[in-house]
């Protein structure tokens, strides 16, 4: 069953149309990868889903409800969370405050105690955050900041997590660690829509994937199908991956 | 301390409401308005809201400017009554202040909330040298320019390196510093100010006619100068800085120097207007230079259209002659001014009469070739709003 469905969504910035009729879906409990070159419109898809970019046409459905044009904070309350590119950790706030901000939308429906439990849970999942709890966000390393950003997003107990290039700019070790954590999210039952530059790594943890080109979906399929696809291999994986 | 503190909230409060400003009050107290001069610019402006391009095209033409200048110079032949000339002289001085502030706010995008300070510096420098030192009025002008430049450097020097909003509030403070200083010092005559300020000479004419003509010539030259400055090499750099400071910096414009140049040029215009004011009033005192004054000049610039010389001239005429139509309702007037500032900024930030650069000017500035003056802002085909 699909938790998120986009049907012929068109969106753009000013006169520029970045999405030209994108249709895709993300199934409950799965990791769906969104692949494509720079400027293909991957981030715009995430922002259109979140209500950060106005939708010019088409519809977005989330959990069976038509959510086109909903304000971001309402979508977050419904269970949508995005980790923007680079994490966008609040550098001047403590790690703990960052995490608590993630739980901002949980007011009526969950008590303080639950938030405190989740805080504990995040510190268990990402031990580095426990040690850094009272440090400022900008004192963390790049990989740690990305962990914090993911943990912060999870604090809203999202049903769907949108991840924008979680491994970009990180050292190979840190990038691998972050992606390992993303793969672990599936075990928690969180649905993930993952935008990732590193196609091979993304398809290794994803269940299904879409390839975007100039604002349109040009290819879709299971991760295995995409990995096997000649087009994907030629365009994104290069010759080194011929043998996979 | 405790015996002085009760004065605290009334520092501006006690003098400002009654003596809004000698100039403004003087304008208000005078007889019936001579709307003839203002009418020339007024009627088309209010209509131009809808189809500004056509109106701007016609009215921004050099011929129209020439016609206005001729009317201004010929006024004493049309109506030489003393009150007509007084109002007209006031309006002319106000125009000079507005085009001067337009260089700072309109061209360069720097908010100066203490412009009256330079006006005061000019008036007091000229007044002091002429009355205490017996200098002829024309000889004070170099000193006035020096004083204005010095003031501009003292205030602009440190603040223009910072974010633009700092300048706004620092100039606001500077305006107060100058006014309070004038009020406290002996050389400036304290609260009584200076009086018996001589004029430039009578040239065998009636005194007020001579003052009017001197003022008219100076102001017309100032308007032309500011308009040409805006269209020249420096003017384009100013607009660049206003539109996008980072881009300007990236294109090799030394933004700090360019901003300081705008601020100092504005200061000189203000100082010279102060000389005209001192001559015209023959007596000056601190309340003439309060914040209200700075705010009214700003109002003229914003209402007319920041960066547009014809717009600012019309704005200045409206602001200086409006009191004649709304006599005895100062509070309403200022209240409406405030509301109008908000409305204009929200619904028509380019002002009633926006600046319309020629296609050529836009291209030139885009390619960074800051050469020549161009043919003036006559075509009105590309507004900056469109370009943005």
């Amino acid at each position: 069953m699909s938790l998120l469905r986009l049907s012929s969504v068109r969106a753009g910035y000013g006169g520029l149309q970045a999405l030209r009729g994108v249709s895709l879906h993300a199934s409950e409990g799965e990791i769906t990868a969104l692949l494509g070159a720079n400027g293909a419109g991957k981030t715009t898809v995430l922002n259109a889903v979140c209500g950060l970019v106005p939708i010019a046409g088409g519809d977005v459905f989330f959990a069976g409800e038509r959510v086109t044009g909903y304000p971001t904070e309402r979508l977050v309350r419904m269970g949508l969370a995005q980790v923007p590119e680079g994490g966008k950790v609040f550098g001047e706030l403590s790690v703990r405050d960052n995490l608590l901000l993630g739980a901002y939308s949980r007011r009526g429906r969950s008590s303080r105690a639950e938030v405190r439990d989740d805080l504990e849970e995040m510190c268990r999942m990402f031990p580095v955050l426990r040690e850094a709890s009272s440090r400022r966000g900008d004192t963390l390393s790049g990989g740690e900041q990305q962990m914090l950003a993911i943990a912060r997003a999870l604090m809203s107990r999202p049903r769907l997590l949108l991840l924008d290039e979680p491994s970009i700019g990180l050292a190979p070790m840190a990038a691998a660690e972050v992606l390992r954590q993303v793969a672990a999210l599936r075990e928690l039952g969180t649905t993930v829509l993952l935008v990732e530059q590193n196609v091979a790594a993304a398809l290794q943890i994803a269940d299904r994937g879409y390839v975007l080109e100039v604002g349109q979906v040009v290819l879709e399929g299971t991760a295995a199908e995409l990995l096997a696809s000649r087009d994907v291999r030629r365009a994104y994986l290069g010759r080194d991956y011929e043998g996979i | 301390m405790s015996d002085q503190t009760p004065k605290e909230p009334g520092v501006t409060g006690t003098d400002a409401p009654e003596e809004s400003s000698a100039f403004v009050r003087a304008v208000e107290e005078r007889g019936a308005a001579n709307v003839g001069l203002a009418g020339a610019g007024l009627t088309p402006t209010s209509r131009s809201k809808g189809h500004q391009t056509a109106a701007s095209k016609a009215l921004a033409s050099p011929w129209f400017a020439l016609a206005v200048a001729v009317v201004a110079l010929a006024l004493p032949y049309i109506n030489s009554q003393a009150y007509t000339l007084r109002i007209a002289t006031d309006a002319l001085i106000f125009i000079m202040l507005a085009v001067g502030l337009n260089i700072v706010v309109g061209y360069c995008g720097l908010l100066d909330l203490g412009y009256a300070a330079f006006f005061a510096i000019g008036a007091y420098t000229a007044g002091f040298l002429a009355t205490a030192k017996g200098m002829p009025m024309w000889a004070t002008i170099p000193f006035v320019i020096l004083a204005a430049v010095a003031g501009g450097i003292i205030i602009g020097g440190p603040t223009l390196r910072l974010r633009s909003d700092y300048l706004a509030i620092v100039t606001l403070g500077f305006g107060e510093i100058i006014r309070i200083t004038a009020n406290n010092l002996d050389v400036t005559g304290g609260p009584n100010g200076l009086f018996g300020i001589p004029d430039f000479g009578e040239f065998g004419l009636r005194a007020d006619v001579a003052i009017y003509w001197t003022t008219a010539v100076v102001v017309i030259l100032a308007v032309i100068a500011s308009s040409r400055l805006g269209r020249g090499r420096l003017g384009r750099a100013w607009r660049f800085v206003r539109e996008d400071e980072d881009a300007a910096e990236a294109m090799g414009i030394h933004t700090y120097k360019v901003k300081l140049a705008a601020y100092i040029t504005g200061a000189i215009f203000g100082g010279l207007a102060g000389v005209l004011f001192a001559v015209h009033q023959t007596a000056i005192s601190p309340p003439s230079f309060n914040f209200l004054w700075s705010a009214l000049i700003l109002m003229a610039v914003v209402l007319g259209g920041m960066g547009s010389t014809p717009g600012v001239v019309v704005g200045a005429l409206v602001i200086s002659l409006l009191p004649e139509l709304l006599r005895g309702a100062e509070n309403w007037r200022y209240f409406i001014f405030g509301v109008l500032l908000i409305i204009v900024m929200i619904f028509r930030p380019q002002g009633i009469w926006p600046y319309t650069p020629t296609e050529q000017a836009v291209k030139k500035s885009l390619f960074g070739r800051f050469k020549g003056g161009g043919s003036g802002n006559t075509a009105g085909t590309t507004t900056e709003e469109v370009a943005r």
Partner: protein
Amino acid sequence: MDYFLQLVLNGLFVGAFYALVALGYTMVYGIIKLLNFAHGDIYMVGGFVGFTMLTAASGAMGAKGGLLLLIVVMVLAMLTTGTLGLIIERIAYRPLRGAPRLSILITAVGASFALEYGIALAYGPNPRAYPVGMGTGSFNVFGVRISTGQLVMVVIAVILMIALDTLVRRTRSGRAMRAISQDPRACLLMGVNVDSVIARTFFLGSALAGAAGVMAGAYYGKIDFLMGFIIGLKAFTAAVIGGIGNIRGAVLGAIVLGLLESFGTAWLGSQWRDVFAFGFLILFLTVRPTGLLGERVTERV
């Protein structure tokens, strides 16, 4: 020595008063980088709202208005000016979010003008005498004279400041405020309704200014429609000294400014007090534009 101590105390007293106004300035600046010129005028409106309520109350209760009445009126005036802050933000500032900085600054000047002359229209341009004072008693401590009014003012100001600091540091709203000042867009992704948090910031800042307005009326005994002008400038100076956008910095800056003024006045005479303060502002911007507690580079953020 006594004289020195007296100057220090006077400086602290004036500083506490500036701090209440400076806090609103610095909060609004911190969150949306707007110099709210109308802030000083909100303080003035607070004075007039208190005046109206106290006049009505002392008419009903006879001449004996106690400190309790004053505090009740102050709270009501805070609610009123807070709401006024909300309205101004909604009408004058929110439509211009994202517009060039110059436009918003000019709008702020317009709002300031509209408030000043709106009050002049409603109450007349002449100063009004406050119907209730803070008591005229005074007592001596270590040879220093402190009036009851001063003491009450400082106590109220300190309580309000501690409350604000707690709110900003410990609560959900406060956390959102601090986060918005860094990255409003990322805040949207946290499910924060940024507009409503900005509105809350205006409410808080304006309420504090309103409290200061009532206190000024009760302490100085009279109010007029331009009384916010100089205070607004002083509050800005205080905020800059402390590092604009920094809440504790605003309090520190206000105290520093109060002390400077106190000593400056003793040295140069009271007619130079404002010149001294603004001259110091210019000097401070030249030497240390980030302020005492500011750490971010202020140049074109």
